[in-house]
């Protein structure tokens, strides 16, 4: 037992110190900083009305408070109180408050259903059984070299910063489970090791929502959708994202051949 250091000359010294404490920990430090001060900056920067209109866009007005919420630097209650205090019209902030609700929902469900944190809540609704999915993440995904430009960029965000835009998380999870047919658990474990806001309940049940083991249908996407929301942020050139460059019916029939054929 020993008392650890509390004062550092600069951030690099702090990072070196933590590296010595945990030589087994992978990767480098994120540019995203911890602490109450950083959290307050983000809290005061929230524009809940704009969030509702732009949150799906890569450059949308998102709060980036999730790492601070996950580590209890601030509570859901405090974030909500901050947002509702100056707003008279409930409708204008409904999207923001509802997103906080998702975290509360997952947490409540996990408290009563811990067995489902790492097990399928329901069967896959993809035409495949759980055993049809790979157990481990392929190496090209782990190193961000899938050959799909936008996916590799999102993997870069995950590995380098520990933060990925929520919409990009959905793309990544969908790509892993449905385009590569890997079990959601493998992806969930990978996300948890990197994400600064990694929370088992929110993370794993969100993966199950994408996978369709905790939702009514699988979530999938195409390049047109990525281009609509992340144009200019990641490379959406068709020639560099061929696997994703198809219509929804085409992708549906390719990804889920055991389901009823979709026309269009």
């Amino acid at each position, binding site marked *: 037992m020993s008392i650890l250091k509390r004062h550092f000359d600069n951030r690099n010294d702090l990072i070196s110190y933590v590296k010595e404490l945990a030589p087994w920990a992978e990767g480098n430090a994120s540019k995203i900083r*911890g602490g109450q001060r950083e959290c307050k900056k983000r809290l005061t920067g929230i524009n809940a009305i704009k969030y509702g209109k732009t949150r799906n866009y890569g450059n949308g007005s998102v709060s980036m408070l999730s790492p601070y919420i996950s580590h209890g630097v601030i509570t859901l209650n405090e974030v909500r109180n901050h947002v509702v205090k100056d707003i008279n019209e409930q409708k204008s*902030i409904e999207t923001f408050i509802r997103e906080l609700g998702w975290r*509360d929902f997952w947490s409540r469900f996990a408290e009563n259903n811990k067995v489902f944190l790492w097990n399928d809540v329901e069967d896959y609704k993809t035409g495949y059984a759980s055993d049809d999915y790979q157990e481990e993440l392929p190496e090209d995904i782990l190193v961000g070299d899938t050959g799909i430009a936008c996916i590799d960029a999102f993997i870069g965000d995950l590995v380098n910063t520990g933060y990925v835009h929520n919409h990009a998380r959905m793309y990544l999870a969908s790509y892993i489970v449905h385009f590569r047919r890997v079990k959601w658990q493998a992806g969930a474990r990978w996300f948890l090791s990197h994400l600064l806001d990694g929370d088992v309940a929110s993370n794993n049940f969100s993966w199950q929502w994408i996978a369709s083991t905790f939702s009514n249908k699988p979530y999938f996407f195409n390049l047109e959708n990525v281009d609509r929301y992340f144009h200019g942020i990641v490379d959406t050139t068709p020639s560099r994202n061929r696997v994703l460059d198809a219509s929804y019916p085409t992708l549906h029939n390719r990804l889920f051949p055991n389901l009823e054929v979709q026309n269009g």
Partner: protein
Amino acid sequence: MADKLLLIHEKALRFGFDLCDASESFRAIHIWDDEYYRTQKYSLKRLVFIYETLLELPLEIIHGNTLDILNEENLDHLVIPYSGDQALKNLFSEIEKIKTVHYLFETCFANLDRTVEFKRFFKYWNQAKKTAFLNNGDRCA
């Protein structure tokens, strides 16, 4: 001399809990438990984020095994912010075997009966939205 020990864990990196009244004497610690963090498989990014946050809190960061350290503490009251996180709940169960623990619960987000289970978000939200837009969620317990 502090008569209560507040154990700040990685899912509650803050102060300002209702019980931390100024009139009470608290000593606050975080235990940097190698085994716990290694088991969580946290990357360096996350560990730096946690340590950086700890530096802004008025507490001691103690390096070692959680149970060993708490065992050595001669204390009457151990106070821990509650967390529903499964790894922490497992740790809490171990701590309860050696110390009497008082948990601090945060104000909930919405005023809902904890025993009612919602299997789909829209069912949850239909109930939760009645209080989710109110300051302190209508003071839910």
